[in-house]
C-alpha cells in the first residue's frame, strides 16, 4: 500500500492506495499526518479497493485520538464494498462521510475556522 498526500487550502487530504486490512493497517498508524493528533485531515478512500475490520479498526483509532485533541478525520469517496463494512458494523455513526474530497475539505475548513 502507498499513501498519497495533497493539500487543499490548509487541509491535508490523505489517500491510501490499495488494501486496508491487518497486513497494512499499521502503515496508516505510521503515517505522519494521520498520527499528528491535533491536525484535522480528510481521508480520501477512492483508491482503497478493499477494507476489512482491521482496516476499519485503524480508522476508528486514528479518529478517536484526533478528537481528543479537538481535531478530526473525515472520510470521503468510499466504494460499495468499503461502504458495506461501514453499514454492517454501524460505523457510519462514528464518521462524517462526504462524497468528494473538495466538499470534505471545505467542511473541515469552516469547522476549524469557527472554533
Amino acid at each position: 500500500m502507498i499513501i498519497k498526500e495533497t493539500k487543499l487550502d490548509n487541509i491535508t487530504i490523505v489517500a491510501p492506495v490499495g488494501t486496508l486490512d491487518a497486513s497494512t493497517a499499521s502503515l496508516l498508524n505510521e503515517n505522519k499526518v494521520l498520527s499528528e493528533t491535533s491536525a484535522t485531515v480528510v481521508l480520501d478512500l477512492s483508491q482503497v479497493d478493499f477494507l476489512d475490520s482491521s482496516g476499519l479498526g485503524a480508522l476508528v483509532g486514528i479518529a478517536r485520538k484526533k478528537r481528543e485533541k479537538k481535531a478530526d478525520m473525515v472520510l470521503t469517496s468510499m466504494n460499495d464494498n468499503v461502504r458495506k463494512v461501514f453499514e454492517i458494523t454501524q460505523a457510519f455513526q462514528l464518521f462524517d462521510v462526504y462524497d468528494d474530497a473538495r466538499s470534505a475539505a471545505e467542511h473541515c475548513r469552516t469547522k476549524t475556522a469557527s472554533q
Partner: protein
Amino acid sequence: MKDSTITLCLPGNIRFTRLASLTASKTAELFLSSMKVSKGIDDFQHAFELSVSEAFTNAARYASPSSHPQPVTISFRFEEKQLTASITDSNPAFTIEPPAPDIENYPEGGYGLLLIRSLMDTVSCRRENNTNTITMSKQPEIH
C-alpha cells in the same frame, strides 16, 4: 467443476492476509463462472474476500504463543448450489457468537465474526484434535 476442492496452506502470520483474501475472491469468481451466474457477482466475490480476510486474520492473531507461526489451512469446496470456505487453525478454542456491536463505546475490534455472519448464509465452528475449523457457505442468487 462440481466437487472441486481448492486448498491453500499459509503461515499463520497477518502478512499473508491478502494472499488469503485474494484467493477467496478469485475462487468465488471461478465458482460463479462454473454456475453461469451473471448477477450479483461482485457482492458474492466480496462476501468471500471479506469473510476469509476476517477468519484468516483471527487465525493468525489469536494463535497460541510459539516461536514459529502455525500453519493455517483455507479450503474451498464447489458444491451443488453453494460455495463453502473453511479455515482451520491450532489456536485455543473460541466461539463464533459475536457480541452485539457496542455502539456507545465503539471499540476498535470485535467486528470480524459479525461481518462473517452478516455476509454468509451459514457459519459454523468445529473443534477437533486441538484445531478449530470455521466453515462458511453462501449460495449465489440465481436469476
